[in-house]
């Protein structure tokens, strides 16, 4: 059951991720990105990272995508025009680089990605995955956690300054 679910989510993930980069309309791309993040959340659940799966939905599929859609609506983008020899050439190069990267990954896979057996001692997950994460995050990873608040503060100030700092030079859209 679980491997089939994984394969299903994986197929959905790859298909929607491909649609993100292939579709001409950025709004459709963003909505496919929501779907791909949701299927990734399903994969996290299957990999026993329940809390990460839920955070994936709350932060990525929820908040991040709202932001993307607002920006797309604000910029009022229509379908992208992608014509011309130069663009076609760049597209060819892009896909070739992708194929090369996959080939490289395949070569690595032959050597074996995972070394050693699965560790014997499972982590202490009494009270669930979220509680276990909390115990580790707020003791051993205390310093990164406090730094995170500085990061969020900087992002907040940066976004406010960028969005509100000075009046638009060419007239604001209504």
């Amino acid at each position, binding site marked *: 059951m679980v491997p089939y*679910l994984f394969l299903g989510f994986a197929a959905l993930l790859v298909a929607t991720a491909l649609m993100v980069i292939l579709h001409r309309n950025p709004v459709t791309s963003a909505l496919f990105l929501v779907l791909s993040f949701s299927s990734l959340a399903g994969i996290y659940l299957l990999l026993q990272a329940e809390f990460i799966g839920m955070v994936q939905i709350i932060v990525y599929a929820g908040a991040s995508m709202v*932001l993307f859609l*607002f920006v797309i609506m*604000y910029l009022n983008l229509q379908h992208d025009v992608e014509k011309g020899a130069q663009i076609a050439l760049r597209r060819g190069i892009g896909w070739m680089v992708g194929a090369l990267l996959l080939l490289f990954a395949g070569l690595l896979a032959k050597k074996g990605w995972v070394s050693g057996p699965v560790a014997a001692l499972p982590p202490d997950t009494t009270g669930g995955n979220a509680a276990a994460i*909390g115990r580790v995050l707020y003791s051993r990873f205390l310093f990164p*956690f406090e730094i995170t*608040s500085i990061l969020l503060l900087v992002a907040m100030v940066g976004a*406010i300054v960028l969005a509100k700092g000075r009046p638009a030079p060419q007239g604001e859209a209504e």
Partner: protein
Amino acid sequence: MLAYLPVLLFVLVGLGFGAVTIGLSTIIVPRRENAVKNSAYECGVEPVGNARGRFSVKFYLVAVLFILFDIEAVFLYPWAVSFHQLGLYGLIEMVLFILILLAGYFYLLKKRALEWE
């Protein structure tokens, strides 16, 4: 892993309900279209312009602040469920975290980022 079976069933039933209602109604509904019926309804007034007008940038600022405070809330979940093991130590570090973010909150209040003028 089997504990998630109800969630999966819920998702499947939800998807199925949407698919069945929309699918069935497109199959069995009678279609007699005309130009007036197909026009967009705008309180009886002739619709003017493109429906996909530009959004104001104010929405963007609210969304940005939402995402940053959303992250803050997400950090509170694991802290709340493991609070009893963390004790006073955990309380102090979380107060520190929230105080730093509160500085950002006062900054945006000062900048009037939340006012809708």
